[in-house]
């Protein structure tokens, strides 16, 4: 597979996060970039990937890009469709979902995510949409993958509101609290980060067009780097072709940025 040299930041994030998925995984998919990443994985190295949506569709097989997570295209030809109470109870809470994809307005060094509010809760600067299923996805899956643009505003030392718990007081503390799994990777437009034994974020690879300095500058705390920090593998030409021609031909999610 030849490496592409013509790709956008979003396309890199899609291709890189797709690599986090394995064919035997069951993944809780969000609409937009996570949906593209999952579909890309399914069409490449993870053909048996099972996509579950928080609307209660299990092993969806969408014939086109869903417009929302309640899109009928996710129900037609699905393996099963259940009420939300069961999707959250019998799948997520029961530990049957391997991977969750999350975004968020703010992410801190422990992988705690805020998608609720910027500023004071009772007198907000920006009122964000809120958790949706994110709190449950972060609490109950075995691995979460976080996708986000990289900036100081989005990577503050402390989030304004913990919507989705990461390694709250460290890895051990998370397990003691009865929370499963935890953040596995954070994929941004500058780097790929993981979490160390203590549950602290560190940079694993830096993207080809970015740099160690650019990554640190876009982060609100003194970020750790792996001893052997490498360069992120760019998307292949095949991956880019799939995204552009089949998965998002109208450029709904990949055209803009």
């Amino acid at each position, binding site marked *: 597979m030849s490496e592409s040299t013509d790709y956008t930041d979003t396309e890199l994030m899609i291709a890189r996060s797709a690599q986090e998925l394995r064919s035997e995984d069951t993944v809780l998919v969000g609409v937009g970039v996570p949906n593209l990443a999952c579909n890309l994985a399914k069409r490449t190295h993870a053909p048996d990937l099972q996509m579950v949506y928080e609307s209660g569709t299990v092993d969806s097989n969408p014939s086109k890009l869903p417009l*929302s997570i309640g899109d*009928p295209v996710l129900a037609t030809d699905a393996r099963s469709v259940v*009420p*939300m109470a069961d999707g959250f109870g019998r799948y997520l809470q029961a530990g049957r979902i391997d991977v969750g994809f999350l975004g968020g307005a703010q992410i801190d060094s422990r992988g705690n995510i805020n998608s609720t509010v910027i500023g004071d809760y009772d007198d907000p600067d920006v009122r964000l949409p809120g958790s*949706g299923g994110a709190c449950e996805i972060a609490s109950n899956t075995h691995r979460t993958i976080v996708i986000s643009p990289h900036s100081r505003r989005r990577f503050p030392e402390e989030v304004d509101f913990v919507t989705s*718990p990461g390694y709250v007081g460290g890895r051990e503390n998370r397990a003691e609290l009865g929370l499963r799994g935890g953040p596995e990777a954070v994929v941004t437009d500058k780097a790929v980060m993981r979490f160390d034994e203590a549950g602290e974020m560190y940079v694993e690879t830096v993207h080809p067009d970015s740099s160690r300095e650019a990554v640190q500058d876009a982060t609100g705390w003194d970020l750790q780097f792996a001893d052997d920090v490498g360069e992120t593998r760019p998307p292949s030409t095949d991956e880019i072709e799939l995204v552009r021609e089949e998965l998002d031909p109208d450029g709904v999610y990949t055209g803009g940025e």
Partner: protein
Amino acid sequence: MTRLTDATTAVSSAVSDGASLYLGGFTHLIPFALGHEIIRQEYEDLHLIRATPDLVYDRMIAAGCAGKVTFSWAGNPGVGSLRAFRRAVEDEVPKPIEIEEYSHYGLVSRLSAGAEDLPFVPLRSYVGTDFPEHTDAIRTVENPYDEGVDEIAVVPSLKPDVAVVRAQRGDESGNAHLWGISGEIVEAAFAADTVIVSVEEVVDEATIRSDPNRTAIPGNVVDYVVEEPYGSHPSYAQGYYDRDNDAYLEWDEVSQTQAGIEAWLDEWVYGVDDHREYLEKLDTDRLLDLQPDTNYATPVDMGAY
């Protein structure tokens, strides 16, 4: 017993100022037609309950119907912000609203508890989050068993005064078949005191009884039945129509300002008598483009014994 009536009568009989109200559907099967009718009847101080407020509550908030919103994800699904909701929360425009916030499972669990008349139900959420600090109803109880966590979050029962839900087909007693994504519709219908079910088609009772496992909403919990083809437009109805995505994208523009919404409401809600007139105002091709191809489920044999 027939419970069949029209939208105007159902809404005026069921809803009153200050009522707590749930409008059903998880981006699928949203009761837009009845939502618009509630706006037309100019109720005030409603407590609006929905996992995903969506455009239907954005409109009700901008129209000044809302006093409080209980929710778990307030966005324009697949598009972006829910601007009227944000204006009300951030700037108190057109008036201040109270909010009560959960994650999806928390809100769904509250309705489940209401449906089963339990004071509360436990769930493994909210640990390590800031929800309990801001949502007083999220509490904990001790686990009286040795197995598992020492304590667990609980949420209390939620029983809306009124639930307005949609289904694809139902009989005149309100026994309804729904398929595709049901979200938290069924829990809400069982939890609410008064239930309006709005259907794409009224069918005879024999059709319902031919597949009783599909009757997720029984007439037992229904007070009013309203037949409204395309009653979920611009949202979806599995097997009937797709989402009118242009309407969702348009709303992102319309809702940039309170004045923009008011002009829109004047034309599309206050300016029409009912949902039929609203549909007639739409371009025909807009509806035609939403039709899926027919795709029947393999039937099951119930057996005649």
